[in-house]
């Protein structure tokens, strides 16, 4: 084990579900403040890679390092749970289907974890909820339940919920692909705002335009490997691999 030199370091990540090998020796570094996009066709392993970073889908091989600490280190169960809960507090995750807690208001969704895990005072909790919901433009709906919100509003609350833990890294797994087209922009705007604040982000997306506009680097994945990566200006305009070209051609045709 060598010392980590990058903010996020994925070393030879390998993941199998039974006989199905979903990630095949993926290595990837992300620097602090960088925004990395991951594109690729369905089933290529994008979500699995993202979910490996916070150990929702534990790797079957390889290492994940975050800010100098190995995420998937070998520890006895109890110690590992404690370690992973601490690690996860540093990593915000946004899901395709929002996964808001339906029995809690927007405010409670945002404050439940910080209240429970950081022991904030009631005044701090109220301030945090207002701050975070204001940031995503949801302050007026602070006491609404998820069932009373549109998809775009739900996703913005879900982002606020993740941000309330003050993560060092944000993971987005197709945050807009369950949304009606007219609701996509409001969520993208929130993500752009985070980009301007230099939040480190890894974004799995099907939206090439969005990836091109916010990402510093884009990775194209296919069948469990990173086929090609580079700045969006290069990857989208002058891909070097046939598979990338084909994917982009299909995707851009499909979109228009």
């Amino acid at each position: 084990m060598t010392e980590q030199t990058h903010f996020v370091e994925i070393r030879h990540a390998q993941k199998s579900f039974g006989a199905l090998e979903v990630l095949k020796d993926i290595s990837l570094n992300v620097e602090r403040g960088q925004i990395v996009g991951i594109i690729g066709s369905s089933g290529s392993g994008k979500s699995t890679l993202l979910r490996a970073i916070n150990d929702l889908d534990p790797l079957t091989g390889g290492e994940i390092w975050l800010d100098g600490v190995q995420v998937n280190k070998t520890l006895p169960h109890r110690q590992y749970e404690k370690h992973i809960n601490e690690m996860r507090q540093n990593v915000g995750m946004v899901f395709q289907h929002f996964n808001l807690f339906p029995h809690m208001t927007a405010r409670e969704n945002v404050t439940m974890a910080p209240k429970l895990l950081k022991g904030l005072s009631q005044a701090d909790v109220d301030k945090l909820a207002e701050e975070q919901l204001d940031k995503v433009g949801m302050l007026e709906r602070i006491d609404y339940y998820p069932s009373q919100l549109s998809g775009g509003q739900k996703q913005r609350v879900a982002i606020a919920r993740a941000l309330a833990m003050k993560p060092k890294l944000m993971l987005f797994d197709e945050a807009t692909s369950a949304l009606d087209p007219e609701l996509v922009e409001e969520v993208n705007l929130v993500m752009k705002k985070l980009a301007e604040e230099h939040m480190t982000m890894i974004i799995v997306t099907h939206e090439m335009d969005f990836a091109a506009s916010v990402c510093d680097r884009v990775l194209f994945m296919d069948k469990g490997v990173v086929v090609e990566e580079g700045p969006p200006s290069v990857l989208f305009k002058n891909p070097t691999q046939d598979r990338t070209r084909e994917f982009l051609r299909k995707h851009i045709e499909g979109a228009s």
Partner: protein
Amino acid sequence: MDIDLMLKVYPFFLEAAWVTIVLSVLTAILGLICGTLGAAARLSRFALLRFLGAAYVSVFRGTPALIQLFILYFGGPQIGIQLDAFEAGVIGLGINAGAYMTETIRGAIIAIDKGQREAARTLGLSSWQATYKVILPQSARLMVRPLGVNLNMLIKATALVAAIAVVELTYTAQRYIGSTYKPFEMFLLAGILYMIIIYVTGRGVAWLDRKVQIN
């Protein structure tokens, strides 16, 4: 139909109905405890506990409650378990009801989308914190109605303890048949009282269900 006779014995039946109610309440409490433990075992990360939970459910749902009662009450003393009839009734029926409730509670827990637990864990909650903050409050809403069905079955199952001579409604009806020779009237009276108990309970469950569904 001898209505006069029914009115005459009615107070004694009412007393017996109280025994049925107390028996039901105690059985329900024990059932809930067993059901909660059973569901926790069935959902445990330890294979041995999962096995024990599954075995509990299949043994107690797979044999007649009456046989379970007989084993406990008549067979118990042979293996050093001395219980009076009422105790045996509560314990036997409670453990039996717990097997059904295990499945109800487990069902309401696994019915919650797995994204809910993932979202909670992603925020840094431990498995137990995710369970009690996120899963159980949602499961509770799903549980009320099916637990109400379990309760309905359990109340009716209390009639079985007549077979070990607990003086509840069914046993009381049988006893008065011995002196009046009017089985129709006696069982009808018992049936009416069961129906009232079950109706009131059902309304209570419906009220609770509405209350937890708000929003």
